[in-house]
């Protein structure tokens, strides 16, 4: 495996490079830090607790009151009328799953997650989450990009832009089976950040089921070896640089040049990383690979770990189908079963490899669900209060931050808006959310817009 440095030197000796270097320099002068290798690892603003992120994204809005936010009063008042805000007149619906105190910490986790519950002492549950709107596309975009009103770079793109990546032969931001809806590619897009920071999608998602993660296609040229292809690609790149020089700045072409280099290196690296047969039977079993209902997500979690281990900065895995307006009982149970063992296996595996301490694992959806019933066996969207959890990466384990009211409707203590959560994630990565900026449209843009407060309480 050739190193990124030797690769760049190799390219540097090619013709057309001077023109490119001049342009890169120009770009660098405009945007300090965006050196000629935009993906090279960069120093954080201050010492980091976490070095990489794994975001387990639960598209659809999983119910918090049935999983991580224990509400005894909701059980007591089952069927009673609720009189708050837009839910006025709806009836409270008790959780159908028992909650138990888990681990040494006594963290509340319901019976939907018996395996994850065994890692309770590693979980930092944020029970006071909030987002602006109870509507999927907006909330899903806000969770990823901070705002939904205008196109903005996604969290993963910001992290990659802020820290670069450790493995120059892999994309720095990988997203497994993201959904096509709810903003689609914008959720792993780079928007006004240079295109190289956008997420590389592997497999496609889908509503109402776990996404499918297939191999990356076109990874191998059927007739041309690496050396011949390198010669060919150098020619392509020289054409691209000439075009760039003729046109002046063109972010699309700059992005294409970078994407090609990455594509070339991925050909050697990705098949290795994605080869799950390298894992022992026992490890695969730990993740639920081959198990009924757990196979897909188990494979994705295992794949995610392999990517993280290989030096990818930000990995996101999407599991859709959490929109339980109906069939809460059967569908929520099925979903939780599908991810419970894989996540537990993932946490255990990260731990034994010494990766959990500096890998921030996040589990959560775009919002939570109402304490009130919808059609008897469902819950509506709830943006005013919901739960996510984080583990590893410098957060307190066995810890609960924030709380909702007696019914789980609204955050009343330690309220953590998505902006605050973003600020916290960046903070754990050693990045100051107010300093991680990119100039666009005459403004120093931030992930957290003009908001965001680090939830210092969660930091170990």
């Amino acid at each position, binding site marked *: 495996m*050739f190193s990124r440095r030797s*690769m760049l030197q*190799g390219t540097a*000796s*090619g*013709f057309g490079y001077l023109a490119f270097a001049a342009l890169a320099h120009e770009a660098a002068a405009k945007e300090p830090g965006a050196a000629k290798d935009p993906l090279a690892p960069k120093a954080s603003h201050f010492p980091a607790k976490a070095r990489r992120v794994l975001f387990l994204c639960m598209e659809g809005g999983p119910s918090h009151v049935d999983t991580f936010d224990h509400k005894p009063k909701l059980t007591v008042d089952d069927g009673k*009328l609720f*009189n708050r*805000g837009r839910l*006025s*007149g709806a009836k409270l619906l008790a959780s159908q799953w028992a909650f138990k105190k888990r681990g040494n910490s006594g963290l509340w986790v319901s019976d939907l997650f018996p395996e994850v519950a065994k890692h309770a002492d590693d979980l930092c549950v944020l029970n006071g989450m909030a987002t602006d709107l109870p*509507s999927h596309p907006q909330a899903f975009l806000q969770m990823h990009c901070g705002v939904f*009103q205008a196109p903005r770079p996604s969290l993963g793109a910001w992290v990659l832009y802020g820290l670069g990546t450790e493995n120059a032969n892999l*994309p720095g931001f990988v997203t497994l089976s993201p959904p*096509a*809806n709810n903003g*689609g*590619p*914008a959720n792993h897009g780079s928007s006004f950040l240079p*295109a190289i920071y*956008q997420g590389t*999608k592997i497999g496609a998602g*889908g*509503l109402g089921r776990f996404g499918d993660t297939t191999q*990356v296609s*076109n*990874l*191998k040229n*059927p007739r041309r*070896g*690496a*050396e*011949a292809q*390198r*010669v060919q*690609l150098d*020619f*392509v790149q020289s054409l*691209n640089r000439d*075009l*760039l020089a003729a*046109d*002046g*700045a*063109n972010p*699309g*072409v700059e*992005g*294409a*040049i970078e*994407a*090609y280099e*990455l*594509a*070339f290196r991925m*050909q050697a690296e990705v098949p290795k990383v994605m080869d799950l047969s390298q894992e022992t039977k026992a490890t695969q079993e730990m993740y639920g690979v081959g198990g009924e209902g757990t196979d897909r997500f188990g494979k994705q979690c295992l794949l995610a770990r392999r990517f993280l281990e290989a030096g990818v900065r930000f990995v996101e895995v999407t599991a859709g189908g959490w929109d339980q307006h109906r069939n809460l009982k059967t569908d929520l149970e099925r979903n939780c079963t599908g991810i419970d063992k894989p996540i537990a296996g993932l946490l255990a595996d990260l731990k034994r490899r010494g990766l959990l301490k500096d890998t921030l694992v996040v589990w959560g959806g775009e919002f939570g669900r109402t304490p009130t019933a*919808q*059609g008897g066996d469902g819950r509506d969207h709830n943006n005013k209060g919901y739960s996510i959890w984080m583990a590893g990466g410098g957060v307190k384990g066995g810890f609960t931050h924030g709380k909702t009211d007696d019914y789980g409707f609204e955050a009343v203590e330690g309220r953590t808006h998505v902006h605050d959560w973003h600020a916290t994630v960046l903070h754990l990565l050693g990045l100051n959310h107010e300093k991680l900026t990119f100039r*666009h*449209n005459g403004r120093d843009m931030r992930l957290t817009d003009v908001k965001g407060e680090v939830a210092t309480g969660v930091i170990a």
Partner: protein
Amino acid sequence: MSLRFAAGLLVSVLAAPASAMEFNDKPTTEQAAFFEKKIRPALVEHCYKCHSADADKLKGGLALDTREGVREGGDGGAVVLPGSPDKSPLIKAVRYLDATTKMPPKGKLPDAVVADFERWVAMGAPDPRTEAGGRKAVEKPAPIDIEKGRSHWSFQPPKAKSAPAVKDAAWATSEVDRFVLAALETKGLKPVGDADARTLIRRAYLDLTGLPPTADEVESFAADRAPDAFEKVVDRLLASPRFGERWGRHWLDVARFAETTGKTTNFNYPHAWRYRDYVIAAFNADKPFDQFVKEQLAGDLLPGGDPTTKAERTVATGFLAVGPKALNARNGLQCLMDLLDEQSDLTTQAFLGLTVACARCHDHKFDPIPTRDYYALAGVFKSTETCYGTVRFVQSQRPSALVTLPQGSAQASITTKLTDAERAAAEKNIAELQVKLREGDIIARLLTSAQLALARSKLDLYEKDGTPKLLAMGAREGFRPANSPVYARGEVDKPGEVVPRGVVRVVGTNQPVIRSGSGRKELAEWIASKDNPLTARVMVNRVWLHVFGRGLVATPDNFGVGGAPPTHPELLDRLAVSFADGGWSVKTLVRTLVLSHAYRLSSKHDAANVEADPDNTLLWRATPRRVEAEVLRDSILAVSGQLDAKPPVGSPVAAAGEGPSNRPRLGPAGGVRPDAETPFRSIYLPVVRDNLPESLALFDGADPSLIVADRPTTNVPSQGLFLLNNPFVLKASDAVADTLLKETTTDSERVRAAYLKFYGRPPVEKELIVADAFLAEYRKVAAKGGPPAAGPPRGPFGGRGPGGFGRPFGGGQTPVRGEREVWSAFAQALFASAEFQYRR
């Protein structure tokens, strides 16, 4: 606003004229005493157990222990219509005459008590209670003020102001230019210079036909010094059948066209291709846009026309039928409401640029669109029968009819006549399956029933005499018109007030009255009217977006309060008015824009302008942009000489017939054949939801489950991998290599020919040197052959190769097979280069 409150409000608005009475808010002493003596005790004794704060469960969402509760009613809407005891559900319930609701459930009240309730309602239900009860007073946002909402810019009629004066009058060669230049001058910006002839003609070809010009076409334009040379090219392109394939695709993005249901089970729509062809033909014929709107919404209801016209208009209504559907939905009403939602969402976004579907569950958060308007519109589609076909099958419980077009209506057929022998064989097969249906376990029987459904659907493609039926997807009038209730929070088990069929009230003041029928015709006419402030603006903006790369309104599907305001409001209005007044001609509009000076600008970067307007919203240059997935694929086919420009009849999905899309006979990828095997233009590739051909999916082709107005452009390594390794690109590169080797003899001739083919321009001196260096280097590595090298590749080629450009080929130094590989690699590099992929 709470929905229940909304429902209550509606009652007071709607029912008041009928009952001519409001709730009695100022009871006299006698009336108050009557309530306290007769009504309150009866409520407490007979009703509070289930309808008060003390109830274990508040039944039907109805609280009778407060005045507000009585007035707001329950989940089903109002219970008391003041002054109208006979119409009030509460009275009907206590009279025990209502079929479903008899209250109290334990037994009928004494007649005297019932009479008291009747009297009470007749006097306007005076209710002196002030205490909070079952439903405490809730925060009630002010109801939507539709009149006030009309002040939003896009709900105002467009005004055709004349173009402002500009300083550089010579630059502005058209009215459009004066608007554009005035905005630039206001900001102190100056447009960059013009694009050269070769760039311009390539741009026009890509924009108007989606295909690059041939080398000859570029050369003859570059040599044409006539002042109207460009105009002639543009008119020729507008008249080309390729125009409809290019611009029809833009519309198919919006119309979320696909040939399968998508969602949970993804069943085929074997007849969807007719709608695709209709759209292409409509753009080619420059069908007036207002007519295009009317045909898609209500083509079946338009008067007159010969059988050909009638068939065409019926096919047009496929617009309403080709959307995503969950065929395994258990709840029929839910399934219906989802269909109506999909149709309402499409209709309002596509034509009006409004996101009305937000109002399914609650009043629109940003726009003055109450749930009532949503359900008024939904009622129109509820009164319509949507014909989408599909078969009853495992996991498909909701097939529908199809529309049969008249024979002799000039519609294509994908099959030939069924012979008697074939029919006999098919019938025998069906008979055997019917017998087999009773055999085996449940799984086996399910499989047999599926086979039977498919076999029957095959036979259903023919008339009795074996003539192929002309089947289409579409819409027709429902059995009887039916208004829709407002469903509280969008929940189908919470029907409220039934609202008359209608349109979005905030849009325009000329609201149609729907007296009979579904109202689709009225809806279509209301949308396709000059008086509708949105229709022309929204379409003009779509056309502008595809010509200039960015809409005047940057949110082409949202002209509401949450959308972006126009960058050039007066220009948008001017164009909208001209569009509607001038006969809704899309081609005229495209022509106007393409012949503007603004269109001819170069894509040159300008540091000062970038600083002031980084997104080029004011159009100081042509923003370079990557061509869309279809254009890239079609260009690769065209340049390599492989394109079969003749439109195919039907579609692989049609050939596969009814049933789930993912079946072995459709190929491993569910109807999507490898790109390398299909030489047709990309618009004719099968559109299987969640399974687009790779060449489209990787390059941001529109997701057919979504209404797509403006595609995103992503830039990811997987695109590079496709261009470097996919057999489709390799095959095209080989084809180019063969042509170059056959038609030219020297390296420099070949490089020159390739540049003209790919880029529409000859190479400059430096490029010849670079190409030559590549050829030399590549010949060296290719000569080595052998397996792919492991480890780091050696540094790329430095100086000039040994051959030098202009070195004649064919002296036998290199085997031809090797040369083919060299030129194939060269051609592929040009395919992979940004210049080939960019419209500049």
